[in-house]
């Protein structure tokens, strides 16, 4: 059965696309900023889910791909004066390439050892960028304000970035849904459930894992290029925040790992919660503590997340909630 014949395929990305377009029609800057954050989180969580939810490899270093891809894209925009579009591709491809190289080394590790290695890589990448001259070392890089005139001024550039992010996020969701309902995805889920058994059944696990890793790295690189282009500058501290990796894990776990819808639900819920905590006078310094507590509660009580819980509770909607 091809992916688009499944009802579940049509559940997630069209809603996100329509919601995102509605913001464009309203032309509301505040709404756009909120939409930007939501789409960014949804794309990041969905791409992490390909590795963590489908393949079963918990990745604490997903933000590495955000950092390195973003740096690469931003380098081309600010230092080489490339237009945004090819830089966007360059950012994604750079992350994918890094994942391919890293994957051949660390995907031999399983379970907790893989997770630990991914934390190490995050620190290594930050240290590297901190000392890498072309990327501006510890001070990073910034884009000349004049660069935005190419896109009709800063205000127009912000809208353009938003629309591109919407496209990238929708693409990430479509890819996620297609993987989920493909032969490739079935192989990944076999690896998740029992890698040795999958090998014995003929799944080329080393290649499948590398492909999943590369695919999951592509989107953070593109998202980050847009994010830093919008910010106008990039520095190591912003690009490689370990806690963002953990926040992504919370989103995936909260919504339901291994599902297409879950990471999106998780991203929206977590963003709203974070927004509330950051602005509330009592909790404003504690939002990460809450993220940790949240993760603990999910792992203990609803390990399958919201979507998993719904699927178990209402068996009739199983086919739809994929």
């Amino acid at each position, binding site marked *: 059965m091809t992916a688009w014949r499944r009802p579940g395929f049509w559940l997630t990305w069209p809603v996100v696309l329509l919601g995102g377009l509605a913001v464009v029609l309203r032309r509301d800057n505040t709404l756009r900023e909120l939409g930007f954050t939501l789409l960014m989180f949804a794309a990041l969580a969905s791409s992490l889910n390909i590795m963590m939810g489908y393949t079963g490899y918990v990745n604490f270093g997903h933000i590495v791909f955000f950092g390195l891809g973003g740096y690469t894209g931003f380098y081309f925009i600010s230092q080489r004066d490339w237009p945004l579009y090819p830089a966007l591709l360059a950012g994604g491809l750079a992350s994918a390439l890094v994942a391919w190289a890293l994957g051949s080394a660390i995907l031999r590790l399983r379970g907790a050892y893989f997770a630990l290695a991914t934390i190490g890589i995050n620190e290594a990448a930050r240290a590297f960028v901190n000392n890498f001259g072309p990327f501006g070392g510890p001070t990073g890089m910034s884009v000349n304000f004049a660069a935005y005139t190419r896109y009709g001024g800063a205000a127009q550039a912000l809208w353009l970035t938003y629309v591109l992010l919407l496209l990238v996020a929708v693409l990430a969701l479509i890819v996620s849904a297609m993987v989920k309902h493909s032969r490739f995805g079935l192989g990944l889920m076999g690896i998740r459930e029992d890698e040795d058994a999958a*090998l014995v059944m003929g799944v080329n696990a080393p290649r499948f894992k590398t492909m999943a890793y590369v695919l999951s790295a592509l989107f953070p690189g593109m998202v980050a290029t847009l994010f830093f282009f919008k910010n106008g500058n990039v520095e190591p501290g912003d690009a490689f925040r370990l806690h963002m990796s953990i926040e992504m894990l919370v989103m995936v776990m909260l919504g339901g790992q291994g599902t297409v819808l879950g990471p999106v639900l998780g991203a929206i819920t977590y963003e709203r919660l974070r927004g509330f905590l950051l602005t509330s006078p009592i909790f404003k310094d504690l939002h990460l503590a809450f993220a940790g507590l949240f993760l603990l509660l999910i792992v203990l009580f609803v390990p399958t997340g919201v979507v998993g819980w719904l699927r178990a509770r209402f068996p009739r909607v199983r086919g739809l909630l994929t």
Partner: protein
Amino acid sequence: MLQVRNVTKRFGGLQALTQVSFDLAEGQILGLIGPNGAGKTTLFNVVNGVYAPDEGQVIFRGQDITGWSPHRVAQGGLARTHQVVRPLNELTVRDNVMVGACFGRESHSLASAGRVADEVLGRVGMAERANQITSSLNVAQKKRLELARALAAHPYVVLLDEVLAGLNPTEIGVMVETVQRIRDDGVTIMMIEHVMQALMRVSDRVLVLDYGLLIAEGSPQDVANDPKVIEAYLGDPGLARRLVAEEAG
């Protein structure tokens, strides 16, 4: 179909297999017996690529497959089941079998794998459980699922590792019939089994392993009457007599 030549496998100081050689002819059921720890499962693991042998060769359909990784061996048409069942728990029964069909010898697309899965599940009597989550099955059902997954690959040879263990007599009867039917469909079978009666009934030939050595090979009757086999299982039958004689003398 399958030739194993002088295979030796060591784990540190433990000699798990010593110079094991045998042939598996097309269309046969070859039984593999031996006391616990004799190296039976290790032999399967060497044949299907989970372990590379330290010495010797495995030749499958005229091709030297020694040291191939398990997924390549599987794609070549050699499937197996596991002694301790290894279901893909969070997937449905049908999905489990589809993995076998998609990545086995015939590399089916998802759609045709679905059809193969339905057909195979019918064959092993699991059709009505196709959409159940695998973790909800009992042991007998999981064993049948292991078998279905292996068969969905449409392999030339299937290695069955104790598919009867843990089943009650009725379930054993059903499973034995299933195994015979698979052979009649043209699949060559090699099976490890502890349920002797059943094994003796279905096997064309039997191999006996003891401490990693092949100590006997032949028809079920010959093997059952071989003094070396009886000794391996029950101890030396002459020993008691000699001890008594020594006491008396």
